[in-house]
Structure formats: C-alpha cells, structure tokens
C-alpha cells in the first residue's frame, strides 16, 4: 500500500484504476463532496468531528422542542387544510360541469388544479411521511392514506420515504437523482441517450405522476439482476389498478356525468392533472438540483454519524423563497432543508424553525441554499442541458 501513500504525497490526479484505492486514506473527517465538485464545497465542510456532532445535538434539540410542543393547534391546521382542499375539489368539479362557459371552465380548472396540488403536496406527501401519525386519527395516518396520484402509497413510501430520504442525493442510491431517465450528475456515466436530457425532462414534467409511479419499479435494478421480475410484475399490477381508477375517475366518470359537456370536463380534469404534474416536478427538482445543493457518492455513506447525516441532508437540499400561500402550495417543500432534516415533523412547523436552522448553518459555515422558484428552476434546467453533453463542464 505504499503506492497509495506515494500518490497522495505527490498530489497528482489519480489514474482511473487507482481512484478508489487512493481516495480512501485521503478522506478527511467528513468528506461530503464528490470528486468532481470538491472545490465548491470543501470550504463549507471544514468542520471537526466534534463540531459536527455538536451541530447534530443542536438540531436534535430543535426537533425535541417541536415534538414536545405539537398539539391541538397543529391538529387543527391539518384538518383545516384537508377540509378546504376537499371543498375546493367539490367546487372545482361542480364549476367544470358548467364548463361550456369559459369563465366557469377557467375557475373550475384552477380550483381543481389547486385542490390536486394541495392533496399531493401539503396533505398526501406529508401524511405519508407520518408527520401526523402522532394524532392517532385512523383517517389521517401514514398507514392508511392513499393519494390522488397514479403512484400507489405503498410504493411511494418505499422509494420516497426510505430510499430518497435515507440516501438523499447519493448518486446510484437515491432514485430521485434523475428518476432513472435523466442525467443530473457528472457522476452518472454519459451515453448518447443523454443528448435527449432536456426533452426527457420536459416530458417527465408533463407526465410527472406516471414518472413517479414507474420510477418505483427500479427497472435498472432488474436489468442488473438485483431485483426479481416477479416483484416488478406485482408492482406493475398495483400501479395498473391505481392508474385505472384514477383515469376512470378523471377521464371517464366525471366527463360522462356531465353528459353533453363531456369534453369541457375532460379537458378541465386533464389540465388540472398536468398543472399539478408540472408544479410538483418543478418544486421537487428545485429541492435538490439547483447549484449549491450537493450530490454524494456511495462511499460517503459508510459509518455515517447522526451529525454527518444531518450535514448531508443540509447540503443536499435547497429551499425556495416565497409567501405563505406559496409555501402551502409546495407542501412546505419550499423548506426542503428543514423537511430533510426532520421529515416527520408536522409541515406547518417548518417555517417556524427555518430561521433557527439558517442561523445554525451560518454559525457552522454551512451553505444554506435558498432562492426564488424561477431562478432555482432555471439553474436546474441549466444543469439538465449541460449534462446532456459528455463532459458536462460548467
């Protein structure tokens, strides 16, 4: 192993065959930075192991405080959101029955779009995280919630709650990095297929719910022999059943109920689903992939401490700036950093703890990425376009 020491002393770039052998002894206490972007973030993670664990304890203290405080007002919040969401859905669908009149069609479609966004983002996503399990209300519980989306809650809880939140931004583990169809990291090997990166992203945003459902299948794992086809077939049947019910409701049952106004209702429902898809795609991609958010490699997961886990969640996420209604419409994923630190705290509390988390980041010199939706989204699109090409240099 002397060769290893020699290379590190000379400081030259390791050749491709020595990379893994060389990187190991060079690792500092916390190396959260992939090789290709090391310069960007090295400064921000120059913390000692003690500092990282201290930061972890201070974040734990925030979590413990919210756990101790949560109570009737939080419960009232989520019930109020659910009530308003359902009222909006009823109102939107009712207006669409009068959809031959353009103002009614526009208002109905807008209401239904907002209802679907709220249902997926502020309600479904957060309930399935178990944020409201503490209320022990069987109707608002992660074990029973099913959302208005073709992806079934069971598959979603695995790929999102487990894989994405455990292996956040770890290339090769977190399937949200590119959803198995996009190249979103220099760490992903380029192939000519990736020339279509911008097109795939556009299609993914239009059909995002289907993308989410299919990405639960982990087809590339099957091709690699790590997952049996029987499991995939089971999932395909589950997705098929769910999709069938969703499609029947929005594209057949409600339009048919409208009788002669079949087409306006169909168009309204289709528009609402697409609006919801584009919106949730934008919010989710802005949560992890604008400049500033960091991606990680699988080696960095080994022996990760609680403090290191927190730091990885912090650096891998990005917030969005906006007002209260905006935060509600993102399901508080505009507080992506706080959500990733504390995925099971009630979402209505993220806004409250965000200033504390930000102050901690400043104190420890960690980057707290935050920006308006449109600038963040332009950055994401920039990355997607850039990585369509082989070297993907900035």
């Amino acid at each position, binding site marked *: 192993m002397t060769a290893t020491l020699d290379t590190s002393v000379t400081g030259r770039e390791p050749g491709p065959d020595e990379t893994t052998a060389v990187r190991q002894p060079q690792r500092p206490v916390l190396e959260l930075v992939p090789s290709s972007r090391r310069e960007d973030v090295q400064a921000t993670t120059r913390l000692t192991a003690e500092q990282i664990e201290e930061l972890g304890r201070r974040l734990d203290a925030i979590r413990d405080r919210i756990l101790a405080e949560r*109570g009737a007002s939080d419960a009232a919040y989520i019930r109020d959101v659910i009530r308003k969401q*359902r009222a909006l859905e009823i109102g939107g669908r009712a207006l669409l029955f009068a959809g031959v009149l353009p103002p009614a069609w526009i208002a109905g479609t807008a209401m239904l779009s907002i209802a679907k966004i709220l249902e997926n983002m502020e309600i479904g996503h957060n309930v399935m995280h178990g944020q409201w399990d*503490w209320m022990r*209300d069987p109707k608002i519980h992660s074990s029973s919630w*099913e959302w208005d989306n073709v992806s079934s809650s069971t598959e979603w809880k695995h790929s999102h709650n487990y894989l994405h939140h455990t292996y956040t931004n770890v290339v090769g583990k977190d399937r949200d990095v590119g959803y198995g169809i996009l190249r979103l990291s220099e760490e992903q090997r380029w192939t000519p297929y990736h020339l279509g990166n911008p097109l795939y992203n556009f299609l993914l945003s239009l059909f995002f719910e289907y993308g989410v459902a299919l990405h639960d299948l982990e087809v590339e794992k099957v091709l690699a022999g790590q997952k049996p086809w029987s499991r995939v077939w089971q999932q395909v049947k589950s997705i098929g059943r769910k999709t069938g019910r969703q499609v029947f409701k929005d594209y057949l049952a409600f339009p048919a109920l409208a009788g002669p106004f079949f087409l306006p209702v169909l168009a309204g429902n289709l528009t609402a689903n697409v609006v919801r898809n584009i919106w949730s795609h934008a919010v989710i991609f802005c949560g992890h992939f604008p400049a500033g958010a960091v991606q990680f490699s699988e080696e960095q997961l080994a022996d990760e401490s609680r403090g290191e886990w927190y730091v990885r969640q912090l650096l891998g996420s990005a917030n969005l700036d906006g007002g209260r209604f905006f935060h509600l419409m993102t399901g508080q994923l505009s507080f992506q950093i706080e959500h990733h630190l504390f995925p099971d705290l009630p979402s209505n509390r993220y806004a409250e703890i965000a200033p504390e988390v930000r102050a901690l980041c400043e104190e420890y010199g960690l980057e707290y990425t935050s920006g308006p939706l449109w600038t963040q989204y332009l950055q994401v699109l920039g990355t997607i376009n850039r990585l369509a090409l082989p070297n993907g240099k900035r």
Partner: protein
Amino acid sequence: MFRSAAPAPGRSGRLLAAASALTTPLLPEDFLTLFDPLWSTTSLRGRVVARRRETGRAVSVTIEPGRAWAGHRAGQYVGVGIDVDGVRHRRSYSLSSPEGARYLTVTVQEVPGGVVSTKLVRDLPIGTVVDLEQADGGFTLPDPPPAGLLFVTAGSGITPVMSMLRTLDAGAAPMPDTVLVHSARTPEDTIFAAELAGLAARHPGLRVVQRHSGVTGRLDPASLDAAVPDRADRTVYACGPDGLLDALTDAWDDVVVERFTPPARASEGTGGTVEFGTGTVEVQPGQSLLEAGESAGRIMPSGCRMGICFGCVLPLREGRVRDLRTGQAHGEPGDLVQTCVNSACGPASIDLP
C-alpha cells in the same frame, strides 16, 4: 382502530360503492363528513349533545350516535375516542342510560392524572364529535331478570347498575325484588343520590342502601351480609374498585363483576424493542404493547384496555411477550396476543392489521 360500523345496507350501500369511483382514492364519506361528521359509513361517531354535572368530580355526557349505532344492553360499556391536545385517546365507559334510549349517556368520574376522564369531566364542549365503538360487555341481566337481585356498587361503579335500574324502571314489568348497596366517599360525592332515592320511593320492590366510606368505612362481605340477611338467595352483581370485587368473589360464590381498572400487575416486565408492522417501537418496562404502540403513533386495535374483551389482540410473529398480570413470559409465532395486558420481554415482532 375501533371496529368498523356495519356497512350501509341495501341500495344506499350500492350507491356509495358506485360513488366511490368518483371519489377514489378517498371514499364518499370523506366528502359527506364535511357536511356532518356523523355520516361516516366506516367508523361510528357521535356528537356530544348534553353534559350534566353529577358530583364535584363526575359528569354525565350525552352523545347522539351515528345511524350505525346498534344500541346497548343495560350494564354494557362503550368505547369512546376523543382528542386531547390533538391526540386521539380511547377509553371504555359504562353506559348509564337505559336500553333503547335514542342518545347514549356515559357517566364519568375524574381519575387523578387521567388524561381522558379529566377532559371529559372538565372540558368537553357541546358539539364535540367523538369516535364510538359498538357497546360490548357481559355485565348484563338475563331476560327475564332473576327474582332476587343484589347490586353492590362503589364510586363510579354505580353507572352500569344505573342503566339496569333505569331500564327496569322504564319496563312494563314490576321491579323485581332488588337491593342496591351503594358506597361513595361522602354524600356530596354520591353519583345519582337523588335519583336512587326517587326510584326506591316509586318501586316497592327496590331497597336502596347508601353508604359513605368516609363515615362508615368501606364495604366488605361481612357488613353486606349484615345489611342484606337474605343475600344468599339473591343473584349478586358487583361493580367497583378491585379490592371490593376481589373480597366479594373470595367470600361468595357466583358474583357477577365488572371491573373498571386493569387487574393488579404482577410484573413490570423487562421491556424491549418490538417491531410493529413496518417499524420498531421501544416498549418500556411496565408499559403494555398497546400503550407503547399508541405513543409511537401507531393505529392499534383496542377495546376495554384491561384484558377482558380481546378487542386488541394482534398476531405475534416472532419472540415472546410477558403478561403483566401474571408475570409469565409466553407466546409462540402465530399466537394472538392481548396487547393491552402484555409487555415486551426482549425483542419481538407483531403484525399490525
């Protein structure tokens, strides 16, 4: 999770099934309950319509049940779920209202430190919607009732017997030959004192003996035998603290008892990490599996919470559990475990429905 209410029958049931194609992934009731929470077809609910203070620390709460309420037999209890600080808590309370009443009434005495009883007694606004379970329990009179009856009650133990007396009072048949010996701490602390005196005045067959433990001491078999010389000829129904019930069942044969508190614990157990469904829960020594699961936010089936009704049983997948009543470790994979009276003894795994 309480047992589901009966599905809506017949045509309305088929209509709801068809409507669920429009509300998927939700159910029609998820929208209908926006208008009235009692219209739920999958869970039985009720609305608090009246509260009456009975003593300084007891109130009667009258609840309008949803349509699926199947009524109760005098002496039975009902499962009630209410939110305290945003968290749903479930308890069982004996019904004090007579059989056939349109609304149901539970009479609750505040237990020091009791989360649910304190809320019910002090701060439960009219209009509050509560979860209900269908009435259950075997502390009931046969039909027709026995010719000679002795009720022995202490404290809030009067409530199921009050339901029986009110039912007998409302019935066409004359009151059977009945003695009620009821003990409370003081006259002021006696639930239903005036109504009991009124019943005794109206029914020649009913004798009511009111005792006050603060003055004459607690009830015991000897003093009861002295007060009711023909006790041996009567069918005895008793409800009250464990000490009284244990003394009566030791001294006399064939006493029908109703307990309000879990039996004394022989063991605190050792606790352990228990897998509930998909996640693990740390069970503290002395904590029941039910309590541990609930405090971790799991939706657990529950019932009487004292080892009687078997409404809380769940299948054991792996490991063993410890019965808090006997201290015995037991359990084979596949066994149905009463989660309310069993704790962990080391790691175990339990299936959730």
